[in-house]
């Protein structure tokens, strides 16, 4: 059983990252390759959208992740604000570039999917616009963080911003139901029965799990280097890294 208190201290978390990363990285690479093979090759062709629908196996998980990472970022920010846990501050701010990348990937794959399906790379549909605004929210967090010289103060300020931004998340998620425009409705999270067949749903959920694994791996790698940057002058880190005075 992991002792949460112990791992909230930076030195032990740094060592934990170092121990987990060599396992997580190959696992992510292998499972990602397997998921791509499953989704892009093994899954059946869609009767209406043909082969083009296969971009869904990247588009949909990254759209889920773009929201999920924002929630993690805001939650870590709340912990950082209330309990002033330094590790939570680092988790909060290291989530931002990862989430921004997922959001950009969602927009990019969505545009590539939209061209053959709708005939246009970009339409001003409510859901597309909301995703673009989510990207702006991430960029706002990154910009505010880099504008404040004091790192700890910067992380707490962006925490407030991220928590305010959480209000926007339900708007994004339910916008498809409110405005109901060009974007297709949700096919997985319906209460009665998923509209996607199991042969397509299984690889999609597999890819979503792999994307989560990728998130954890990337976050740990970023955290490890950010702890190294924060603690480069400290005794324990110099001992860890084998730096002689």
């Amino acid at each position, binding site marked *: 059983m992991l002792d949460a208190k112990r791992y909230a201290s930076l030195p032990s978390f740094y060592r934990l990252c170092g121990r987990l990363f060599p396992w997580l990285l190959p696992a992510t690479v292998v499972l990602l390759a397997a998921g791509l093979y499953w989704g892009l090759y093994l899954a059946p062709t869609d009767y209406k959208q043909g082969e083009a629908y296969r971009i869904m196996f990247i588009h949909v998980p990254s759209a889920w992740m773009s929201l999920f990472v924002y929630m993690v970022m805001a939650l870590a920010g709340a912990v950082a604000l209330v309990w002033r846990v330094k590790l939570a501050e680092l988790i909060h701010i290291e989530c931002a570039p990862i989430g921004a990348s997922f959001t950009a990937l969602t927009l990019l794959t969505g545009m590539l999917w939209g061209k053959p399906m709708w005939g246009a790379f970009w339409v001003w549909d409510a859901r597309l616009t909301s995703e673009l605004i989510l990207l702006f929210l991430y960029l706002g967090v990154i910009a*505010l963080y880099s504008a404040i010289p004091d790192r700890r103060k910067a992380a707490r300020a962006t925490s407030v911003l991220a928590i*305010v931004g959480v209000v926007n998340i339900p708007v994004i998620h339910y916008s498809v139901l409110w405005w109901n425009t060009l974007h297709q409705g949700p096919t997985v999270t319906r209460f009665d029965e998923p509209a996607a067949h199991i042969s397509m749903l299984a690889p999609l959920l597999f890819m979503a799990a792999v994307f989560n694994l990728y998130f954890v791996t990337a976050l740990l790698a970023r955290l490890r280097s950010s702890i190294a940057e924060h603690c480069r002058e400290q005794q324990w880190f110099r001992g860890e890294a084998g730096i002689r005075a």
Partner: protein
Amino acid sequence: MFDAFVSLVRRDLSAAVNIHSNWLMPVAFFTVVVSLFPLGVDADPAVLRRLAPGIIWIAALLAGLLSLERAFKDDFENGSLEQWLITPHGVYPFALARIFAHWCITGLPFMLLAPFYGYLLGMPVHSLPVVVFSLALGTPVLSALGAVGAALTGCLRRGEMLMVLLVLPFYVPLLVFGANAMDLAAAGLPAEAALAISGAILIVTLLLAPLAVGASLRVMLD
């Protein structure tokens, strides 16, 4: 606590009135932005009538940001912000008073001028009450959310552009429903649904935004 709120609002408003540009600038900016659209897009009445709700809302959005940048800067620089954070009233009435005072010099005149501009842009007369009502519900939200951005960037040296970048995404739901209400009214359709959602946004924002302002100010003064 109410006395503190009133005296703060009075102080802010008298400061704004004593310096001419402070209360005239947002109104002048609002007017200029509205009048640029016919020049930039098209002076055709049919086009302008279609664009009018969006023009009015975007002009209100941008003009409201104009005077926000200094909302907390002076108090931060002369130290009265710290005094406020340690008073027994807490930071809530302070933030609310700042938001209200800002609304008085931006949202309120916009609200009163908007039906006039709406008419100039060709909106039908029967839709003008909805224009006023939609701005009445929406402009306090602009001030409240803007205050959060101002509090986060107030003590930074070059915070103006950053504040705009932080705040504008949060204005989107408001812009959508506010302009939608005017659109519906101009088309002769009932606008209650969009107005009701604007009202809901207003209530939630007025409850939570002062808390966020307080949290931001505490972080920045730490």
